[in-house]
């Protein structure tokens, strides 16, 4: 589904990602772990071209997103993204947050977009907050709305950039629960996270990113029970 080839990202002289190759298949739930500053977020943001790679290719469903001629906006509609800071639109109600993109970009009738939004809100337990303003929601509720906003575009893949890092501890669970259900429903997901429990339980593959390279990659079992490289061993010793 997403094929990353020799992805390199430099900020000035600093090489953040160094010739990364990854293949993401349909139905994959991939967790990206690693120390801070390793380039995890940059990697994720390159997948939907929020960061422009310095070199290399991102092939999404057969289209090279790094090709300047490709219509990025069209492909981004099929890649949902969830941000650490939620980034809900504060000047719109929850319902407008959810329906503005489908109505504007997919020319959906308002009733259809709202019906889907309500159904998805119900699934994350927020059906009664449709008319609230984002400022009236808790962090956990905001993030659940943000997930639903991305889902409303009916994407083929969901990208999560540390979705629980800005949350109070007691709200982490409700967001992870929504993500777990999403994974169970067969959504293709790439998750940058510090939640090792979630990675172990939900991911089918884990990438360990350090110093701009994928140092190790494998099933949760292999990564957590039988780490090979010293960097990963050291990292796990600190976080587990």
């Amino acid at each position, binding site marked *: 589904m997403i094929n990353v080839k020799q992805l390199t990202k430099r900020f000035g002289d600093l090489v953040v990602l160094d010739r990364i190759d990854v293949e993401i298949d349909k139905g994959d739930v991939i967790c990206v772990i690693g120390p801070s500053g390793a380039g995890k977020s940059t990697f994720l943001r390159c997948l939907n071209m929020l960061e422009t790679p310095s070199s290399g290719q991102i092939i999404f469903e057969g289209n090279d997103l790094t090709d300047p001629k490709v219509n990025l906006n069209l492909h981004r509609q099929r890649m949902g993204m969830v*941000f650490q800071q939620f980034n809900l639109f504060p*000047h719109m*109600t929850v319902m407008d947050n959810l329906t503005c993109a489908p109505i504007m970009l997919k020319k959906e009738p308002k009733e259809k977009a709202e019906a889907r939004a309500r159904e998805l809100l119900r699934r994350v337990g927020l059906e009664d907050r449709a008319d609230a303003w984002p400022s009236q929601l808790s962090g956990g509720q905001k993030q659940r709305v943000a997930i639903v*906003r991305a889902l409303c575009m009916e994407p083929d893949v969901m990208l999560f950039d540390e979705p629980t890092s800005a949350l109070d501890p007691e709200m982490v669970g409700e967001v992870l629960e929504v993500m777990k259900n999403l994974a169970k429903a067969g959504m293709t997901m790439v998750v940058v996270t510090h939640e090792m429990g979630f990675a172990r339980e939900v991911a089918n593959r884990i990438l360990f990113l350090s110093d701009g390279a994928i140092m190790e990659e494998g099933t949760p079992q292999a990564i957590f029970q039988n780490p090979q490289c010293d960097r990963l061993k050291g990292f796990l010793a600190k976080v587990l």
Partner: protein
Amino acid sequence: MSAWLTTLHQTFIETGYWRQMLLGLQNTIMITLGALCIGVAFGAILAICKYFSEGNRALRPLEILCDTYTTVIRGIPMMVLLLVFFFVVFSGTRNKLGVCILAFGLNSAAYVAEIVRSGINAVDRGQMEAGRSLGMSKLQAMRKVIMPQAIRNILPAIGNEMIALVKETSVAGYVGVMDLTKMGERAKSITFDAVNPLLVVAVTYLIIVLGLTRLLGTVERRLNRDKR
């Protein structure tokens, strides 16, 4: 008190000069509104051009052009700009009011451009990213996501600009445009009453500014209805 009222009556009613004062007020309002329309429209265009050309090498000339415009205009006193418009650019024009509106409008645009630019920059970067990640083009995200939020940051400063503009139009009389101040001056020289014409002029400006302040307060409250 009654002596003062008698003087007022003599100065404005007996001479029929109140009509001229009203005409002056009308001209002041026309210059202000006209200049404001030009200023806001052109200023917003300048700011958006700058926003899109920043960090885009192909649009670098556009960025330089916008920067030069704001620098030059902001660096020249309004009075001088007005004189240049009247005696160089549009010398011999008959439509004095039109040239005046254009001069004030183009001057105002430079300030509005900076106000709008800083208002846009104050919106969190994540907002544009969220819009883009949903598949919006930069322009769509600008319209639907950034501008509605930027307007909240912009409005109070635009209010200040409006107030400054109303008062700045009082130099229009210098090039022979019959605005409120000019009419007051004339009333003074015709009636030999130095106090009352100026008093009336000053109070009129004050009332306009007070009205604007209240209007802006109302609009601001309506824009902020989603804030707790």
